[in-house]
């Protein structure tokens, strides 16, 4: 499989990364080089193999359903590029 300009544009858009035409031209061969190299994984017969889900067998725990922290609104907002009235500020999303 290889990617073309249109696919790279789509990947960039899904990744929410703005790219220029010149960057796309550079990315097409770069990504194809990497994708061509990882394609060798197709040689491995994995028909009877389960995909790995945990490197070290470890049952995921459930914690008690209780509030154990909170009241940290100002700390959470402390690093926001724009915060007003206790909320994150974002550009207008509804016309």
């Amino acid at each position, binding site marked *: 499989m290889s990617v073309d300009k249109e696919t790279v544009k789509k990947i960039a858009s899904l990744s929410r*990364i*703005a790219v220029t035409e010149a960057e796309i031209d550079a990315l097409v061969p770069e990504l194809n080089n990497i994708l061509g190299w990882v394609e060798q994984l197709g040689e491995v017969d994995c028909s009877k193999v389960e995909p*790995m889900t945990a490197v070290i067998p470890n049952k995921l725990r459930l914690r008690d359903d209780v509030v154990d922290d909170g009241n940290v609104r100002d700390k959470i907002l402390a690093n926001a590029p724009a915060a007003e009235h206790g909320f994150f500020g974002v550009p207008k999303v509804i016309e």
Partner: protein
Amino acid sequence: MTEIYELGIAGIRSGIASGDFTAKEVAETFIGRVSAAKPLNAVLVETPDHALAAAEATDKAKAAGETLGKMAGVPIGMKDLFCTNGVPTTAASLILEGFTPQYESTVSSNLFKAGAGMLGKLNMDQFAMGSSNETSAFGNVISPWRRNDGGNADIAPGGSSGGSAAVVSGRICPAATGTDTGGSIRQPAAFVGITGLKPTYGRCSRWGTIAFASSLDQAGPMAHDVRDCAIMLEAMAGFDPKDSTSLNLPVPEWEAGLKSDLTGKRIGIPKEYRVDNMPPEIDALWQQGIQWLKDAGATIVDVSLPHTKYALPAYYIIAPAEASSNLARYDGVRYGLRDLPDGAGLQEMYAATREAGFGSEVKRRIMIGTYVLSAGYYDAYYTQAQKVRTLISRDFDKAWESCDVLLAPTAPSAAFGLGEKNDDPLAMYLNDVFTVPSSLAGLPAMSVPAGLDRQGLPLGLQLIGKALDEQTVLNAGLALEERAGFVAKPEQWW
């Protein structure tokens, strides 16, 4: 008397215990070393007050006759991937410029509770993506080492924990934290002639460590020698309910268990690690390492890890896939950079912020990750890679039927010069050929400095152990260390 700055963790501990010097003197010494090391560009934020406060606490505790913590009076360098309360943390990316965590990562918090102070936040490859420290948004870290050809070409400290490697080898910090996703502790440790240990996945909490690839990321110590790594890992590790993959197990007393007599231990030599065009010096050092371990009482067995060649391509699907998901959080809303062009809406703001904030290697990996996870390609790439990962893990399980620990080189070459390898991402990825398989299997692995190449640059040998068996890794490392007698240090030019 040995200068204080020449000492590692154990040396500082015994000097403070015997009253040769105070923790404050130690902190002041290293604060001076840090501020004089600016040409290496290894430290992004200096935190002398933190180191001094911890030192004063240690001196007070000692005067009061209290039992001192494992890291009491040891000022360390902190890789800038660990969130530190009130101290800017960027992962060496512009997208986190100005971010000041309001909380402390579990690993740094554990170290501080054990009495360590912090000298500063260390430069690294951006989001830990790189093998040469050339992807940092704040400039390259320059290795303290130089080639013996009389030239002054800048040498790469390795990556991603390049700042950590530089400060420990330059005797600028007595020890430093690192993180390892595909070799980011071990390869830089090998490049600068220090010891670095990646523990079993789950030993150290990932809470508060900026995520790259969550199923692979592990914190670990980078220090002068095997003993210092054992002490520091004891302080870093431990169960943390805030990390769902943290192992709920007691932390072993690795230092007390150190023993370089390897009688009865079987050392596996994986034949697939003998790669084409391996430099003869690396191969010779590997043979020497085999001899050293035999000399320590171990028996040597040949083992096969047949899927080794597929580890790198599997890694370069899995790690970018996890990164694309983890790095989706950088959106210009909650923290860090916001780029809001005139009249832009929310979507344009995301795209502009991420375009301006991420470096090119980070963007490349996010896009690869996005592609391999996208509809229609997920099974062919991501699921297949996770299946191959199962096979790689099984290879190790099979090897453990006939051996207790594996010996291999850490990296396929000595350190290269800055700028010598950064035009081809694939060539850079190949640096991790010996470190990635054990990362994919979550196994403990350590690099021990073992010799110099003909350019006078350090070379490391790697030990890979069974899950949770850091002790055998440390013991075999100690056996190598005692026999290698590696004492070379970079000459101070900065």
